[in-house]
C-alpha cells in the first residue's frame, strides 16, 4: 500500500501499523519495550503483586528456601524475597529516571554552549571530561558518593552529574559537525542572534542523538546504583533494593542458600537487559545502515 493511504486509516490502525513497522525494523527494541513496561507495571502497582510486606521480618522463617508461602524464599532477616524483589523495581526506576533527567538537563546545555562557543571554555570542559574518562565510572561514583554523603537523593544527584558528560560530549560533537554545516552558517548570515541559533537551529537537530542514548544511560544508572548498594554505599540493607539484597545474600552463596542473591540479581539483569535492548534497537532505527541488509 502506498504511504498516501495511511492518512485514511483510523488512528488505532495507524498506531498498530506503526508499532508493527517498528517491531519489524527492530525486534530488539520491541522486546526491550515489553520488558520495561512489565517492570514499570511492577514498580507502579507493586502493592498488587507483593504477597508480603517487603520489610516485615518473620523471625521463625529465616533463610527458608522457595516454597508455596514464600515463592522466592526468605532472607537472613526472615523477609519475603519475592515481595522485596517486586518492590525493588521502584528503586530501579526511581533512581534511573531522575538521574538521566539530571544528566540530560546538565549535559545538553553544556554541550550546546561548549560546542558553539568553542575557545577556552570548551577546551577546559573537554579536558575535565577527558580527565574523568581516566577512571572507571563505578570507582568515580563510589568515591564521590562516599565523599559527599550516602543518601538516596545523593546517589541520584551524583549519578546524574557524573553521567552528564556523556550527553555533553554527544551534543558537542553534533554541534561541531553542524557548525561547519551550511545551515548554521546560513543562519548566521541571515543575521540570527546567538540564542536563536542555539535554540531554533542547533538544539532541535542535536537532541535526537542525545535522546537515543537515554535508554542505555538509564541501564547504566540502574546498574551502578545497584553496585553501590552491593558495596554498602548509598542505600543500606534492609532496604529492598536489588543491589543491597545481593549484598545480603553474598555470604550465603558458598553455603548453599542461593535464593537470597539469585532472585534480585535476575530482576536486575532483566531490567538492565530491557533497557539495553531498547537502546540498541533505537540505534538500529536511527541508523539505516545498521539495518541495511535485511
Amino acid at each position, binding site marked *: *500500500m*502506498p*504511504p498516501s493511504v*495511511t492518512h485514511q486509516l483510523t488512528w488505532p490502525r*495507524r498506531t498498530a*501499523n*506503526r508499532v*508493527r*513497522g*517498528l517491531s*519489524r*525494523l527492530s525486534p530488539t527494541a520491541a522486546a526491550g519495550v515489553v520488558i520495561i513496561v512489565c517492570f514499570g507495571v511492577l514498580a507502579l502497582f507493586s502493592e498488587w503483586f507483593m504477597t508480603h510486606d517487603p520489610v516485615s521480618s518473620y523471625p521463625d522463617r529465616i533463610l527458608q528456601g522457595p516454597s508455596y508461602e514464600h515463592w522466592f524464599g526468605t532472607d537472613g532477616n526472615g523477609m519475603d524475597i519475592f515481595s522485596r524483589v517486586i518492590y525493588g523495581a521502584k528503586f530501579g526506576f526511581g533512581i534511573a529516571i531522575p538521574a538521566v533527567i539530571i544528566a540530560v538537563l546538565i549535559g545538553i546545555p553544556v554541550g550546546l554552549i561548549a560546542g558553539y562557543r568553542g575557545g577556552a571554555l570548551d577546551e577546559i570542559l573537554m579536558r575535565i571530561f577527558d580527565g574523568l574518562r581516566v577512571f572507571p565510572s563505578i570507582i568515580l561514583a563510589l568515591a564521590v558518593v562516599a565523599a559527599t554523603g550516602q543518601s538516596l537523593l545523593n546517589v541520584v544527584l551524583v549519578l546524574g552529574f557524573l553521567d552528564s558528560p556523556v550527553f555533553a560530549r554527544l551534543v558537542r560533537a553534533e554541534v561541531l559537525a553542524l557548525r561547519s554545516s551550511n545551515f548554521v552558517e546560513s543562519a548566521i548570515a541571515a543575521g540570527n542572534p546567538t540564542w536563536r541559533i542555539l535554540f531554533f537551529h542547533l538544539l532541535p537537530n542535536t537532541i535526537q542523538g542525545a535522546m537515543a542514548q537515554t535508554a542505555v544511560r538509564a541501564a547504566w544508572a540502574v546498574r551502578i546504583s545497584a553496585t553501590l548498594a552491593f558495596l554498602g554505599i548509598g542505600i543500606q540493607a534492609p532496604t529492598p533494593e536489588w543491589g543491597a539484597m545481593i549484598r545480603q545474600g553474598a555470604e550465603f552463596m558458598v553455603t548453599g542458600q542461593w535464593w537470597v542473591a539469585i532472585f534480585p540479581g535476575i530482576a536486575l539483569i532483566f531490567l538492565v537487559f530491557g533497557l539495553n535492548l531498547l537502546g540498541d534497537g533505537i540505534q538500529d*532505527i536511527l541508523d539505516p545502515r545498521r539495518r*541495511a*541488509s*535485511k
Partner: protein
Amino acid sequence: MNLLKITDLQTHFVFHDIDNYRREARALNKVNLNLNRGEIVGIVGETGAGKSLTAQSICGLLRPPAKVVGGSVLFLGKELLSLAEEDLNDIRGAEIGMVVQNPKSSLDPLTRIGDQLVRIHQTHTASAISVARSKAIAMMHAVGIPDPEKRFSAWPHELSGGMAQRVLIAMALMNEPKLLIADEPTTGLDVTVQAQILELLKDLVRRFEMGTIIITHDLGIVAHYCDKVAVMFAGEIVEYGTVTDIFRRPGHPYTKQLLASTPEKLKLNEAGSLGGQPPDLFNLPEGCLSQDRCSLASDQCRTPPPVITLETGQTVRCHFALQ
C-alpha cells in the same frame, strides 16, 4: 557477438518502511544496451536516473536493499546475473575493469600501491611475483605515473587525487580487460586534472581496444570523449545512438531538454525553464515515464512508448520519435 548485451535489466529497492508497508522503488526499468569492442559509450542522466546503478547491476556490486529483479546481462555471451559470487570474482577485475569516483578512499589504505597492483594481477592469473611486479611497473608507466619504481612502494594517502585516479586506471588495466566501466571517473577532480585523466583514458581505450562505459552527468565529457551515448531518465534508456547523431538531432524530448539546458545552449529568459520533478520511483506513471515534464505529452503517452529506430540508427523510446 556483442561484447556486452543488456536486455530489460530491472533493479528495484525493496524494503519495509516504518509503518510496516512494503515499499518498492523501481530504480531501473528495462535498461537495454549493446556495446562492442573498442567503443566508448557514455551514459548520461540526472541524479537518480540510475546511471551508477546500471554499472553496479552489471557487476553484481549492488548493496541491499537494491536487487536485480529481471532482465539479462550477457557479457561475451555469458549471463552475468546468474553467476555465483566466486565466478563473478573471476570476471571482475580480470575481464571487466572498474574505475570509480573516489579513488583516494577506494584504494586499500594499508597496502602499498604496487602491492595492490600485484595483488589484482595475481588474483586473476597464475603469474609469478616478479612477473606481476614488472607488469605493475610497466602499467604505472603507461598511465603516466612518474618514477614508477619509486611510486611502487608509495602509500595511497601519499597520492594526490589525480595520481590516485591514475593508479585506479592502472589497476583496471592490469589484467587487460575487455570491458572497462568508469563511473564518474573525474567528478572529484579539478578541471585541469580532469583533462589529463580523460585524455589518458581515451588513449588507453584505443590502445587496448576495450569496450568502455563512461558514466557521467557532464555532457561536455560525452561530446568530446565518447563514440556513443545512452541518455537515461528514471531508470530507462530513453535514447541511444552515436554522439554526433544525438547531439545534432536528438530524437527524444527529454534529450532535447537536456541539451538545451547546457550553459552553452541555454538562452536565458527565452523559453520558460523546463524544471519539473524527476518522477517518484515509488509511484511511476503508467506508460511513458517522462510524460509529466514533456511538452508533447498527450493521452497516447499513458501507454508504454515503443522503441523506434531512426534512419540514423539511434533508438528512441517515444511515441513521437518519428515526428
